[in-house]
């Protein structure tokens, strides 16, 4: 490979690449590396103690109660990821498909589907909290009014419904994004290919699964990767809706909350421990980085086959 010449093309590429890299290096990588270093020290509250090698990692992974907290949060993240995959991306795909057909009113629907995306998480969180309100919530009121009061639940208070409540809110909030990305992908499919399929089948199902879906692979890459990273970094919505503790009893706890709570403490926990918090963050990062990279590479390969 030729060396990067500092003239002409080389200079120009350098000029393009250096400022953005500098930003990321200075404001993300450098502080994060410092913070990661915390993971190797023992902390007494805010005071940094001795260098303890991997002890913090050992603690969060293998010592109770941290071990079960870590597992619980991770398990919840996995649930969130797969649930959103179906609810957010799956629904997004379906909606994109419906919008793509340009039926009457499509323009209006298109604006509507994307509207929640521009709302802030705070708004969404508060709204859905109100919806899930056991007494005055829209959901329970509606259920009661159609005579299905026995279905009314304290949605956010039960271990088996709280996380799903949050997931639903998240899916509502963000479904517009995959929808439009998929829609953009679908509109790139050449009309003749669609005609070709129609010559061979009427089945909508075949068209979607065998043709449309494979052909929107580039959109899927963007959507999947961002969802993966987003799901494992999930913080804001559960934080506002369920609090830092992952209430009730950890059933909405996710890695983002857990690491934040561990590092910075919360009102009830009292203790804050940067060492453990950073160890968790490092582990989360490594996990996401490895999987996101693998995922992206695999998805990109799928694209390239087109």
């Amino acid at each position, binding site marked *: 490979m030729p060396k990067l010449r500092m003239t002409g093309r080389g200079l120009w590429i350098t000029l393009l690449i250096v400022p953005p890299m500098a930003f990321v290096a200075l*404001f993300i990588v450098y502080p994060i590396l410092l913070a990661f270093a915390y993971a190797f020290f023992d902390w007494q509250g805010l005071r940094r103690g001795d260098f303890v090698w991997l002890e913090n990692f050992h603690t969060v992974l293998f010592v109770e109660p941290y071990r079960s907290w870590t597992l619980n949060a991770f398990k919840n993240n996995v649930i969130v990821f797969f649930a959103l995959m179906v609810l957010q991306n799956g629904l997004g795909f379906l909606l994109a498909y419906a919008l*793509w057909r340009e039926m009457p009113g499509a323009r209006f629907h298109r604006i509507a589907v994307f509207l929640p995306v521009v709302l802030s998480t705070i708004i969404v969180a508060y709204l859905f909290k109100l919806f899930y309100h056991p007494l*005055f919530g829209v959901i329970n009121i509606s259920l009661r009014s159609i005579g299905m009061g026995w279905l009314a639940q304290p949605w956010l208070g039960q271990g088996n419904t709280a996380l799903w409540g949050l997931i639903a809110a998240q899916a509502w909030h963000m479904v517009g994004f995959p929808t439009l990305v998929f829609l953009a992908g679908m509109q790139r499919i050449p009309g003749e290919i669609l005609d070709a399929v129609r010559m061979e089948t009427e089945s909508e199902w075949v068209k979607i699964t065998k043709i449309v879906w494979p052909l929107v692979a580039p959109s899927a890459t963007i959507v999947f990767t961002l969802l993966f990273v987003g799901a494992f970094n999930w913080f804001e919505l559960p934080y506002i809706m369920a609090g830092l503790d992952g209430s009730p009893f950890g059933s909405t706890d996710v890695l983002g909350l857990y690491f934040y709570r561990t590092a910075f403490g919360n009102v009830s926990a009292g203790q804050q421990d940067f060492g453990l918090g950073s160890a968790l963050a490092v582990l989360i990062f490594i996990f996401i980085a490895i999987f996101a990279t693998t995922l992206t590479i695999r998805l990109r390969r799928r694209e390239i086959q087109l």
Partner: protein
Amino acid sequence: MSTASATASRKAMTYGDRPGMLASLGRDGLLQIILIANTIIMLAPIVIMVFSAFKTTPQIFQAPFSIPDFTQVGNFIKIWNETNFLRYLLNSFFVTGASMVLILTLGTMAAYAIGRYAFTGSSFILMFFLAGLTLPLKLAIIPLFMLMRDLGILNNQLSLIFVYTAMGLPTTVFIMTGFIRSLPNELEDAARMDGASEARIMWAIMLPLVRPAMVIAGIQNVVPIWNDFFFPLVFIQNDNLKTLPQGLTTFMGEYTTDWGVLFSGLTLSAAPIVIIYIVLSKQFIAGMTSGAVK
């Protein structure tokens, strides 16, 4: 170029436009129902939020769906009187705007270099940005804080702009690299024959063509930046420099139990971006979906 998109959308239109067969009606009907249901689900919460902003808290609890008396603007007046709303709004515009300009500029620069030129280390650089996508920056708040202190931009909106820019770059580079890669080489060659410098090729020829990608990347970033209140909370203490979500969360902290005020605060903080979205929705969605341009 965009004839492709025109054809595609024309085909898409004729695609559904088949004669009155029962089956086809049923299927399109189903899709139409899904769309309408979805739209209701999408809009209802927003409508309820706006309605609630005009109600008192007991009214909200007793009749969450009812149409309020829109002249009852007490909640808004309270917010208006007790906060620096306009100032927060301007600050938010400034911070978000400046960050977006930087993100799109720098992000496009990096994506352009990675996507358009083959050079040693380009895939490493892409990985570098991808890694940035996955880092939990909240953890680094203390080093970041010290960094800002050393740069002398604590209590200065630059600190926010810089952090947001750095946070937005990875996604932007990720989304745009693929798009930029798919642009035809011949255009670049043509411009080169025309005597355009590399910079001008990028600026005058290639960038106008990646606008859809910029829209997608922009959306992906503008919303979290507009709504963020974590970093301002840490970096900004001067009330005159606060952003809207920060200012309002501080304010709403005092009204946790007054849902009416809360909702009017939420409505107010959502209003600017929602209005901008609706006004620009045509370009916005067109920009997004004309990703069809090949």
